[in-house]
């Protein structure tokens, strides 16, 4: 392989490895399991509202531990939730800038598609914002991505070419296309949850 291909190859593996370090698996008592992303070393985990649900939660950490988790806040409209485990020193994801994403940018999605722990898929950004064909007039902001999301990817991290979190993978819209909640929407949600003292 050429030098450039070798470099790309190792970059992709580095980014995947970095992002996989902040990935958790979330069981909500129902069938199957979703994904989550470690936001803060002290046990704050961000996922989709539809993954967190209302039931008793258990979280499988990247270090192999399985801990009970508590639902802190949930926003069904933006499909985002914050949960917490009692732990410290967890490998939190590095936050990126979803507003700076441009169509064509390379992104990686990590999750547990069909239960395969930490499976990673790469693709590109289709578009960012509320101006997307799927959204149809709603003011909600999304990142549309061209990559293969599957059941079990929900709640997992979407990272940029530097391995920084830009979105929370949320829904597949086709076999090779999906949508993620932008990280700036997740930040707003956490800020509001904190202001209303749902998160200390």
């Amino acid at each position, binding site marked *: 392989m050429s030098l450039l291909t070798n470099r790309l190859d190792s970059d992709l593996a580095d980014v995947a490895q970095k992002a996989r370090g902040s990935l958790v698996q979330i069981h909500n008592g129902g069938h199957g399991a979703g994904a989550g992303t470690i936001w803060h070393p002290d046990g704050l985990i961000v996922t989709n509202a539809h993954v967190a649900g209302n039931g008793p939660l258990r979280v499988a950490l990247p270090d192999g531990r399985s801990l009970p988790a508590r639902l802190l806040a949930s926003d069904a409209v933006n499909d985002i939730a914050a949960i917490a485990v009692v732990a410290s020193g967890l490998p939190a994801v590095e936050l990126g800038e979803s507003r700076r994403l441009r*169509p064509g940018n390379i992104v990686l999605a990590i999750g547990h598609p069909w239960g395969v722990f930490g499976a990673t898929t790469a693709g590109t950004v289709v578009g960012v914002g509320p101006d997307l064909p799927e959204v149809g007039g709603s003011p909600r902001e999304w990142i549309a991505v061209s990559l293969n999301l599957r059941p079990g990817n929900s709640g997992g991290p979407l990272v940029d070419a*530097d391995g920084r979190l830009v979105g929370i993978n949320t829904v597949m819209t086709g076999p090779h296309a999906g949508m993620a909640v932008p990280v700036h929407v997740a930040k707003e949600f956490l800020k509001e949850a904190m202001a209303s003292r749902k998160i200390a």
Partner: protein
Amino acid sequence: MAETLRKLSDDLAQTVEAAGPSIVRVAARRRLPASGIVWSSDGTIVTAHHVVERDDSIEIGLPDGGTATATLAGRDPTTDIAVLRTSAAGLAEPRWRGADSLRVGNIVLALGRPGRSVLATMGIVSALGESWRTPAGGRLDHYLQTDVVMYPGFSGGPLVDSEGSVVGLNTSALSRGAALAVPFDTLGRVVEALLSRGRIRRGYLGVGAQPARLPDGLAKELGQETGLLLVSVEAGSPAEQSGLLMGDTLVTLNGNRIRHLDDLFAALDEEAIGQPVPAKLVRGGKLQDAAISVGERE
């Protein structure tokens, strides 16, 4: 970390942005709008025929966020090309490039503007071949298939190479399941014809026909199992003037096998019009040669 990956990521986004000013939104159907490409800066737009469901009151969404109205200048369903005229001026023409510059495996981007902003998907050239007949009988100068995801509203938008040059017009209507692009040379040929005549010339015979099984011996000799049995010949038509009779079975025209109706439609293209073209037909159980003058469909 990941400097090469980041550079690739930035490059791809740059390529999208470079081509963006030449991509417009085409709202000419009830459902989601589709995309179009600036053909000339004075307001000619090329798009896909199948996304244009009306001939006027077409709304064009411009790259600067404004809108303009357009009317249909001409369409060719056989190659899925439509040309629109709008009064908007000063549009940005893209850089065009022939499919000859591409190889299987090359990175390509499909771009569209179904809303206000440009959207993009990435893929590679999957197959690149010589001239290809579309199911509707049109001729593409190259068969250009990619694995890009055809996002909603991407038909009519450009397929762009790694340098940001437009190599074709994406359509999901010419082939079931595969993303095909109408290559630049075909666009040039068809758009010029549509602008000068408003349509693509099609050949005309004036027969009613249906496929019919050939006798075993003939089928073997010709290497085809069916021909087209003429069930009617219009009075005064090119077919009648060329001596074709009801009951004849047409098996070749202008060197093309005629096995079913699609073969005939394909053979009756612009080049066949005017001069007598060689044909083979079965009459009274015997194979014989004929010369047929193909007329032009009005």
